[in-house]
Structure formats: C-alpha cells, structure tokens
C-alpha cells in the first residue's frame, strides 16, 4: 500500500473540506482546535496502471495548515503524528507532500525518530523529490520549444539551485540536455560554488541579473512574499516553471510573453476515485497530482519499498532515470502549457 501525507492550502480551505466530508464540529473550530486535531486517514483508493498492476493507497491529512508554520512545535507534531499514523496503518511507502517534507527537513525531524511508542522507520517514507525534479526537467524540455525557445541556445536559470530538487534539475539539464547556459541562483555562496564545480559549469548570478537574461526560469525556492518581479525586465518569450511550494508565481508575473507553468505536477491516464486532490487545488483533481505523491505510487507499482528520495542532494541521474521510466510506464504524463498534455516520452 502507498500513502500520501497532505494538507490543505489554507485554514479556510481546510474548514471547507472538513464540512464537505461531514466533520462539522472540527470544521467550525478555530485554529487552536485544528492545532490539537490529530491526523486523519481520510480515504482509501485503488489505482490500476496501464501496465496492469493494481495498487491500494491511503490519503492522510495531517490537519496541518500553512497558518501553523510560525508555531514550530505544532508543525513538527503534525508531521510526526501523520508519519506515525502512516506507519501504524502498515503503509509501505508514503510521500510527504506540500509543506510536510519542507518541515521535515528544515525542522530537522530526523532527530525525532521516536513518536510515543513508535520508532519511525525512515525506509517507509519518501520526499518524492526525485520524481518532482525529473518532471520539472521534462517540463522544461517539452515546453520551451513550443514557445519558440531553442534550448541549445537558451539560458536556463534555476532559482534555488542548491536545494535538493534544484541541484538535481541542474545535474539533469547539464548531463541530459544541451541547454545553452545554466544560470545558478541561490542564497548561500559556498553551496553555489560547490555546485558549480560539481557540474563543471554554470554561471552564478544574483536573482535580478539572472531573471533579465533567462529564457527559461525554474523556480524551486520558496518565494519571499515581498518579492516583486518587474515584467519589463524579463525576456519575451520567457518560460517560468513554478516548482516551489506554494505555487504563487502566476500572481506575480504572467501574461505579455511570460508563460507560467505549474512545475512538478503530473496527470494520470485515467480518473482516480479520490476526493482529496481537490484540496491541492488541481485543475483536474481526479487525475492531476504533485509528482512527489506520484512517486509513492510509482514505488508501490514497482514494489520498490525504500526511502527512494531522502536527505539532501542524494538525487542521482540514475535515480531520475529509474523514476522517469516508471512514470511513463505507469501512465503518468507531465503538465504542459495550454493544458495540452503531451506524453512524457523521453
């Protein structure tokens, strides 16, 4: 069985969903009530891949909402309790969706392996970042040409280049595509310099300089609320892949030759009978989902019960190849511009 740990995009959205599911009393509660609400296994699903394999899965809502981010202990508890529930339910491989994996990493939850009487078995969890990175790379390769951008001469900026997903994207673009030039953007200079030497190339730039030069921008960093982007300083056309979480890039730019694509989103080849993807605000909630969630499904399809994506900077090209091939084999395609989905055939 595969598992997905997710959460609503806001407190208001969480309340609406709870009402819809018939959890009226909790829905009416204030944020403090939600802070004390335990994780819920909200639904079971069965999915059959085009390869003829059927798997079962469960969606766990951690009852976390982004408004709890400033409450460090609450956020930590939500993630750990949801993971404990997944393990207790005997789920083989569970993806940490949305803020879950970000909290896990930034709040250093590896130090909290014991939750009450349960010792968390890290092998049962995956951040899903390998699949996310592969999907983002495919989105670059599939969509740049449709805007008339020739990747061979294009400059591709990766914002958040030293992160887990960002560095994997850089590795893939360097090794597997002939991009004209890679522009590396991140906050800390030393990891940037290390990445540049690992890649054997790429140019380190400040964000504003990179934006004005780039034909393609891959965003895999959390964006400061205060960040403003001057549309006039951007190249046109420009493909922007919004691979961060939450996805809010289209509220800052878009239009006038700037094309924003939600990054790291995949679509399954048939409807999945679940209701929970609506809370992730997907356009087609019956088929679309975060690539990180799909990674748990892929690992279950492949009977690969291991923490495939774990820790920082462990994503290799081989791992991306493996998960990419599985993604195609089991009927997933990447989200593309103009809502026209093209099969993600490598």
């Amino acid at each position, binding site marked *: 069985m595969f598992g997905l740990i997710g959460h609503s995009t*806001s407190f208001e959205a969480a309340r609406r969903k709870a009402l819809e*599911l*018939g*959890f*009226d*009393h*909790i829905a*009416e*509660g204030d944020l*403090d*009530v939600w*802070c*004390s*609400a*335990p*994780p*819920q*296994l*909200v639904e079971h699903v069965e999915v059959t891949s085009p390869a003829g394999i059927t798997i079962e899965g469960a969606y766990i809502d951690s009852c976390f909402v*982004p*408004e709890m*981010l*400033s409450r*460090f*202990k*609450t956020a930590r*508890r939500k993630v750990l*309790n949801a993971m404990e*529930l997944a393990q*207790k339910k005997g789920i083989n491989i569970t993806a940490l969706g949305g*803020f879950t994996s*970000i*909290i896990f990493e*930034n*709040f*250093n939850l590896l130090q909290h392996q014991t939750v*009450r*009487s349960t010792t968390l078995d890290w092998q049962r969890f995956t951040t899903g970042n390998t699949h996310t990175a592969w999907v983002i790379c495919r989105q670059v390769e599939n969509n740049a040409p449709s805007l008339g951008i020739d990747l061979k001469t294009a400059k591709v900026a990766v914002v958040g280049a030293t992160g887990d997903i960002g560095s994997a994207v850089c590795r893939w673009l360097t090794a597997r595509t002939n991009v004209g030039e890679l522009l590396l953007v991140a906050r800390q200079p030393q990891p940037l310099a290390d990445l540049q030497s690992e890649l054997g190339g790429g140019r380190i730039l400040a964000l504003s300089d990179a934006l004005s030069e780039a034909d393609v921008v891959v965003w895999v960093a*959390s*964006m*400061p*609320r205060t960040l403003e982007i001057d549309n006039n300083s951007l190249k046109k056309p420009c493909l922007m892949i919004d691979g961060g979480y*939450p996805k*809010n890039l289209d509220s800052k730019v878009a239009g006038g030759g700037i094309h924003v694509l939600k990054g790291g989103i995949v679509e399954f080849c048939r409807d999945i009978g679940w209701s929970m993807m609506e809370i992730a605000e997907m356009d087609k909630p019956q088929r679309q989902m975060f690539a990180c969630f799909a990674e748990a499904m892929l690992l279950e399809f492949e009977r690969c019960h291991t923490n495939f994506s774990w820790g920082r900077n462990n994503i290799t090209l081989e791992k991306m190849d493996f998960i990419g091939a599985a993604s195609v084999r089991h009927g997933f395609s990447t989200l593309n511009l103009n809502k026209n989905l093209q099969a993600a055939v490598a």
Partner: protein
Amino acid sequence: MPTLNAPEVSVLEGHDALPDFTTSAYKDAYSRINAIVIEGEQEAHDNYISLGTLIPEQAEELSRLAKMEMKHMKGFTACGRNLGVQADMPFAKDFFGPLHGNFQIALREGKVVTCLLIQALLIEAFAISAYHIYIPVADPFARKITEGVVKDEYTHLNYGQEWLKANYEASRDELFEANKANLPLIRSMLEDVAADAAVLHMEKEDLIEDFLIAYQEALNEIGFTSRDIAKMAAAALSI
C-alpha cells in the same frame, strides 16, 4: 502565505529544554499534577476491581490489572517524595469528582460498556498521552518510573478495547451515549490541568492531540468508522 524562515526556526528549537525541578513554582505545580496521577492510579485500581463484579468471569484478569495500578501509584508517590513535594490529594479528588461520579452511577446500573469507556478507554488514553509527553521533560527519577508505567497502560487500554470490540454491535449505542456524557469531562480536566502542566513543560495542545490519537485509535480498533470517530472526538475539541 507564510514561508519557512530558517533563523526563526533555530531560535524556537531551544524550547525543548528541561525545566528546573528545584524551583518553588515547579514544586507547586508538581504537587497537583503528582496528586492527579496518584489519585488516577488509585481510582483505576478501584474501578478495575469494581468492573470485576460486573464481568465475574474476568474478575481474575481485572484484579491483575488493578494490582498493576497500585504498583504505579506507589511509583508516582515515590516521584513526589524524590522532589520533596507533598501531593495535593484534596485537589485531585475534586479533579476526578465528576468522572468518578459518572463511573459510580454506571456501576450501580450495571452498565459495563460505560464503565469500560470511562476507565479503560478515556482514563487510560488520557494517562498514556500525558505520560508520553511527560517523559521527555521529567526529572531522571520520574522518567524511569513513568517509562515503566506507560508500557503497562497500553495493556489496560487494550483490555477495554478488546472487550468492546468483541461486543461491538451490542455496545455501539451505549458507547455513543457514554462518549457524549464523559468526553467533555476529560476535556475540562485537560483545561484544569493545563496551567500546571505548562510549568512542567507539557503543552495543552500536545496533551489534547496525543489524547485524541490514543482514543481514536482505540475506537477504530473497536470498529467505529473514521466519520463516527471524528464526530465522537469533536466533543473533546470544542469547549
């Protein structure tokens, strides 16, 4: 939309530090918490013995559970003594008063299901969650004792769970009723203890969530659906 901010997080992480067990504020709060625990174990002992009169064929097993509770009571009495704290027993008697009253009424009426819900589910889940949260912030002596106790309490929760599971259909309606009448009492007990618990570095939010996890898990094992459970648990979340 808030985003993660690493420096802020690292500042907040310092909060897990142990309290100073020697301050008068700590000892004052401990006098009530310790009393609650001692009284709770005593009542648990008495309740299991009483349950033996309602389920005579299991009287022996229940008496074994009761004996464990007495052992716990002695352990916790030693924890108070170790810190030089006099447990405030009159406070604890009042604290358990309403729940104790409900148990006695159910006992007189021969309501096994209600008695099991109060003692083997609610009180045990309450104890398990509180002990788990206490262990990381306890003094070394109490920590050792509590770690031993918490293992036993799962046996007790399990006892009630198994009995109710085996009699689920016949118990269902009474469980709904008993939950409605008694879960709010647990919630107000949590409120009453929150300020003292905070002095011991145990947070109300944690106590409620952990209690609900243990309680919901038991209800789930017994046979209730997620939706039933969420409805039942709501009585603990909203005041």
